[in-house]
């Protein structure tokens, strides 16, 4: 089976405090730790487990800049056979639909049976997979938590729905699935693995090779654009305890007593 996984390099929110830059136009990106978008990593692992069973190969692609090559290489160290960087100044300023349009053009250059994305990335939009599927007229399922191969070019999948329930469906190939975290246990990638793929060439594709123009997918075509960032004020905000650890523990004890936690 030929599988494409669409991945993204993102600031690692578990490793970083995210601050605004002084203009509020972006987050402060100096000194941020970047990594593969976590659900994307699960998607690559799932793809590798499928091809280990039935053969085929796993390709990873990202839309970005030279800096994003590192996540392609990381996923190739996991076992993906091919990595492709889609990068072109003409594609800057895309909205989600623009990214999906670029990926559509890329998918049509290949011959994939299955296309995976992570369920969402750093912007939390959870949009590109579903858009890509609709553009390709492929069936789609989001929040996928298991994939079983079936005969006759079908998969049996489960989706995560409310209250811990799992929705089981059958889906025809080729299709697009967005993968939820926890679907598997992604393999460890060590320095040795990274070094092994350090010199593997990663081709770059631009707008011309994909037959795209900026007015169909770039900033000019974007219907959605970020105006600015700001620090949210949801709710009242916590009363932050600024005491020493010992004082804070005493305060928590008081609260536990007051709220019925200790008798």
């Amino acid at each position, binding site marked *: 089976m030929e599988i494409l996984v669409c991945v993204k390099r993102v600031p690692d929110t578990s490793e970083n405090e*995210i601050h605004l830059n002084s203009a509020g136009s972006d987050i402060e990106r100096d000194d941020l730790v970047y990594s593969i978008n976590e659900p994307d990593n699960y998607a690559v692992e799932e793809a590798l487990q499928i091809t280990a069973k039935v053969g085929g190969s796993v390709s990873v692609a990202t839309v970005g800049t030279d800096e994003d090559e590192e996540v392609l290489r990381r996923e190739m160290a996991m076992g993906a056979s091919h990595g492709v960087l889609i990068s072109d100044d003409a594609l800057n300023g895309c909205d*989600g639909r623009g990214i999906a349009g670029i990926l559509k053009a890329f998918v049509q250059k290949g011959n994939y049976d299955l296309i995976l994305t992570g369920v969402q990335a750093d912007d939390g*939009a959870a*949009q590109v997979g*579903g858009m890509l599927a609709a553009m390709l007229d492929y069936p789609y399922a989001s929040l996928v938590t298991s994939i079983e191969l079936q005969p006759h070019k079908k998969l049996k999948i489960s989706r995560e729905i409310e209250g*811990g329930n799992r929705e089981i469906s059958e889906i025809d190939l080729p299709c697009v699935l967005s993968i939820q975290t926890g679907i598997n246990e992604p393999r460890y990638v060590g320095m040795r693995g990274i070094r092994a793929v350090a010199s593997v060439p990663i081709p770059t594709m631009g707008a011309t090779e994909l037959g795209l123009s900026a007015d169909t997918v770039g900033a000019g075509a974007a219907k959605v654009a970020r*105006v600015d960032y700001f620090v949210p004020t949801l709710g009242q905000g916590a009363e932050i305890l600024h005491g020493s650890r*010992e004082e804070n523990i005493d305060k928590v004890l008081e609260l536990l007593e007051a709220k019925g936690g200790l*008798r």
Partner: protein
Amino acid sequence: MSQLFAYIAHKNGAADDCALELAAAARKISPAVAPIAILSGFGSELDETCKSLSSAFSEIWKISNPELSYPNAELVRKALVKIVPANSIMVLAHDHFGMDLAPGLSIKLNAAFVSDVVDMEVIDPFSLKVVRQEFGGQISAHVRCDVSSGAVVTVRPGAFRANETAPVRGAIVEKTIEVGDLAAGRRYLETIEPEAGDVDITKHNILVSVGRGIQEQDNIHIAEELADVLGAAVSCSRPVVDAKWLPKSRQVGSSGKTVKPKLYLACGISGASQHLAGIKGGFLIAINKNPKAPIFQVADVGIVDDILEFLPELTNKVRETHAVSTK
């Protein structure tokens, strides 16, 4: 302004909890006009739900089809594309169903798409300015959305308050025949309920809830020891279940359990909206070493500290001061 629609999910003859929130969100776009609700399904449960919504929506468009007995987003999308007029604005909930349906719907309607919206305002007849959260809720963004050729907007459940508006008497409009036959490359088979866990976290007054900040499985005992002296249960957020450090039955959130304890100690939990959706009340104390963690926006009391050091000291202090534990 364009015609406003809200797609209303329903189950067992009752509209989704978000139905009136979606009406309120639509009214933010078009205050003067009650939106049109669209419901799909089959049988008496669909009819009941349609009737129940007539006071909040100007019309209720009903799509009745046995294929839609279960809301398969692929089929619902095809149904909607057949009946929703060009340039409409469609509002849906950003939940497991909305996430499944909305992105592809926006493509097929050739409409703008913006998701998980927590607030919005109309800038001019062709633009909306919405508020979204990024980076796990650490930062918010204003996003401008060109709605001149329509839009699909998913809103975060709980973000829009169902408001008091003069009741309308929306008529039920049959759209079944217009939709016609439906088929899709994805077919629903069954729903599997979660296995009952060893501990029912919904039955506890105090939850010691751990997140990614617990760092490794070998540290779970730190939370268990505190829970022991408090007579509490240990619950958790999604990353802990993903890593298989605790079973799914301990997960609090929209894809886990909904809990209403008296006291919730969020330990090393960042506070993703999906997690917060599972906490319905109670006093919330958050301990996290990241002062920017969104959990501090909603907690009652916050402590910026490392749980791996703070919790054991708290446990010792409880043992010292409350020698006979509450168990």
